[in-house]
């Protein structure tokens, strides 16, 4: 079976002004979104108390909210956990104003808070029970944010150095720009649809960096190969051909990865829901940027055959391996 014309010669670079322009617009939109809407940071980052409750019979979110209101929890955020029986209730640490034990959310008397929440829920519906509760201190979340930024910078730098050594510095710049593009769009998407940015989403964003760079490297690798083989090197032609020749692989791998993430999305339950959703979006963005974004940038940076020649020395050795 084949989905793609093996001899396709689509002029991807010809539409570079449109595609890169669109990418820049989307990146700006993401920045604006992040500035205006921000991220819906989960408990992992904000600190506070989270209670997950289970009902024997289906329950409406409003009903849960009303029950909490009656119990004195005025600032509780109630969400459904994919079904009609499981809800998560989040109490911010700064939600101190009165209320039955709401102030305790700050002091870490998490079990007391959880107990009070359960009491409030059971007052309205006796079939409620607790399935978990979490308490996170504000400092932990702060550290996690820092760790996440450090990790992202570490990945980006590591990848940049590796590509600069194995390819050439212009490839490294193009890769990093594409990474920034993919991460910005993914985070912008998270902000847009308002899913909670929790630990697993952070892990997904970092995994997206890894996934997307994998995609770029395959296209770059083909460009490098074509540059070295070509008698007369016309970067425009070569970069276009490298996209076309790897197109089928780029999309096939996205499809298999997307299939697995779809399986996780469908079967994995609420614990990995946000993770799978972020991954799915990131895969789409990463694939599109491999095709429409990375090579135009490479072209503009002015990559040419001569840039790739000095490193040929160590290449045959590697290429000979199975």
């Amino acid at each position, binding site marked *: *079976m*084949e989905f793609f014309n*093996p001899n396709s010669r689509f002029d991807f670079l010809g539409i570079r002004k449109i595609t890169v322009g669109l990418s820049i617009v989307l990146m700006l939109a993401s920045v604006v979104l992040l500035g205006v809407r921000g991220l819906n940071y989960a408990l992992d980052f904000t600190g506070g108390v989270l209670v997950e409750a*289970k009902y024997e019979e289906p329950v409406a979110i409003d009903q849960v909210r009303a029950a909490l209101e009656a119990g004195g929890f005025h600032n509780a955020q109630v969400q459904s956990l994919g079904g009609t029986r499981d809800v998560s209730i989040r109490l911010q640490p700064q939600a101190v104003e009165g209320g039955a034990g709401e102030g305790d959310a700050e002091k*870490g008397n998490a*079990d007391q808070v959880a107990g009070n929440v359960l009491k409030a829920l059971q007052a309205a519906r006796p079939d409620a029970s607790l*399935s*978990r*509760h*979490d*308490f*996170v*201190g504000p*400092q*932990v979340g702060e550290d*996690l944010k820092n*760790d*996440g930024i450090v*990790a*992202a910078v*570490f990945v980006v730098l*590591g*990848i940049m150095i*590796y*590509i600069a050594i194995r390819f050439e510095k212009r490839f490294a710049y193009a890769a990093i720009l594409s990474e920034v593009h993919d991460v910005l769009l993914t985070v912008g998407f998270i902000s847009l649809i308002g899913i909670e940015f929790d*630990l697993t989403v952070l*892990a997904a964003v*970092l995994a997206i*960096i*890894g*996934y997307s*760079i*994998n995609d770029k*490297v*395959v296209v770059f*690798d*083909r460009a490098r190969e074509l540059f070295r083989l070509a008698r007369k090197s016309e970067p425009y032609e070569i970069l276009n051909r490298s996209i076309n020749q*790897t197109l089928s*692989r780029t999309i*096939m*791998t996205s*499809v*298999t*990865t*997307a*299939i*697995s*993430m779809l*399986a*996780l999305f*469908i*079967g*994995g*339950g609420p*614990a*990995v829901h946000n*993770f799978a959703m972020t*991954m799915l979006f990131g895969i789409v963005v990463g694939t599109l940027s491999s095709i429409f974004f990375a090579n135009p940038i490479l072209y503009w940076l002015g990559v040419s055959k001569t840039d790739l020649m000095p490193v040929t020395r160590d290449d045959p050795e590697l290429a000979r*391996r*199975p």
Partner: protein
Amino acid sequence: MNEFPRWKYALVVVVLLLGVLYGVPNLFVQQPAVQVSANRGAPVDEALKEKVQGVLEQGKVPFETIDLNASQLLVRLPIGASEEQARAQELLKADLGDQYIVALNLASTVPGWMHAIGAREMPKGLDLQGGVHFLMQVDDKDVMDRQLQRYADDIRAALRDKQIRYQSVGRGPGGVVVELRSAEDRTAAQRIIEMEVPDVTVAVGGQVGDAYTLNATVKPEKITEISQNTIRQNVATLGNRINALGVAEPLIQQQGDTRIAVELPGVQDTAEAKKILGATATLEYHAVDENANAIEAARSGHVPPDDKLYYRRETGPDGQPIPILLKKKVIVSGDEMVDASSAPDPQSGTPAVSVTLNATGGRKMLEFTSQSVGKPMAVVYVERTPEVKIVNGEEVRSAKITEEVISVATIRGVFSNKFQTTGLGSAKEASDLALMLRSGALAAPVDIVEERVIGPSLGKDNIEKGIKAVLIGFVSVLLFMIVYYRLFGIVADIALFFNLVLLLSIMSAIGVTLTMPGIAGIVLTLGMAVDANVLICERIREELRNGSTPLASIRAGYEKAWATILDSNVTTLFAGVALLTMGSGAIRGFGIVLSIGILTSMFTSVTVTHAITHLIHSGKRRPKSLSIGIKVPHASAS
């Protein structure tokens, strides 16, 4: 055909067999068990085994076997007997009393020989089995404070010793400030402090009025050492206390520089756990009353008025803690201790613990020892566990106090703030004692900064959903590969299966805890692992289209794809490793799986598929075409 050497076939076969061997333990269902271990040195032996057996038979609890090993008894119950398990625990607890810890556990049913070669099942994270997770922040400010005080004492003593007159020695910001009367004194003092107190760096400060100042700051490596010690001893203390909780497999580990993560599988009641974790410890030095008979006092309850009856940590020949009578008066308390460390005695080379007190403590000790040479002195470890009880609707706060004598030694000579305890049995005993002394005297306050409680049913739910997601993902990718790449798809699928097996077996062998993010990592790995096969298949297709023969296409496909596979996987590995560096356990678990998955997939997708492909196509007849999902119009032999 020598392009695929024999040793590579052998390698593939050996690795796959090992993968299966180390992956298989995960298929064994764990059985409910009750674990009985000793609290404070009570004997665990055949007699105990018989006793336990008797209790269970009398209570009509069905059990399979009772295993006795070095430190514990493990009663195995039939699979699915969770109610009986709870009843067995109740019965045993009631019968064995305080001296033994009876904990619920899940026992592995993996055969012994597998355990012997390190093949075992993956431990499950709290999100898959339910339990309590705490993250505790250690505050080492007090400890640091006390260390500075100690350096101030040391500097004072050194200057006094060398007869340098100083105006004052006091605490300054981040160190000790010494004020002297003249520039000459200052130069001399700097030299002396640098020599006598090697842990500080001395810098010349300004001149305030007629005072010439020196600023002594603690060296950064010493500060790191102090905070490292603080956290290590907190980990040890928490470990001891949690053992008393009776949790089968608790996990206590340092996380970052100042935090300790505690995981208690199966526990749901955080209040009880917190109470025990929140206990505070201190030390007291007491004189031993040699004129009274402690055993007699313990039996009759008649204790001399100036004395108090204590028990030693060690047990006597009868298995009971040894009683001892100590004078009520406290010589020196834990607040006055600044350090305790184990090091061999410089004179005899035998294990010893050296203790340093502060100036006040030293003075009291000097006063006491000058009258008591040749007499024994004891160290009591006191632990206060806060308790809150509701009496008549009001909260009553009280504390449960446990006291234990951890060391008794004879005073050999007069000493003040520095002394040694010698005559200890082994280096281990010495370091244990030093650790106990430090945890009593230098305990840093611990705050709970994160708490997660996961109900057991949620854990079960997660595991079911996780397995379901892995299966759906796996099967969909398998089908997709077969439809698109035909025979080569099947080969890739075989490799993908072995990738899953290898991934699980490596995770099991190195003891990675399986968590929900870890399962997400497994599913992601399944999707990404076929990337190498896609690269290879696409390359082979290209070669076929260019008119190469099937065998040449295979060879060229594998050769040309390799550089790409290497580059793309190494860059992805950067992301995996970065995830590993994150402090949070959830993200780390995901990163570990992703990183291992990248490595195993490089092996299975390239080497394993190459071996299989080669095996299929290396028959006597040269294949005319390849089943790779495309039709090549003129596949001619060249």
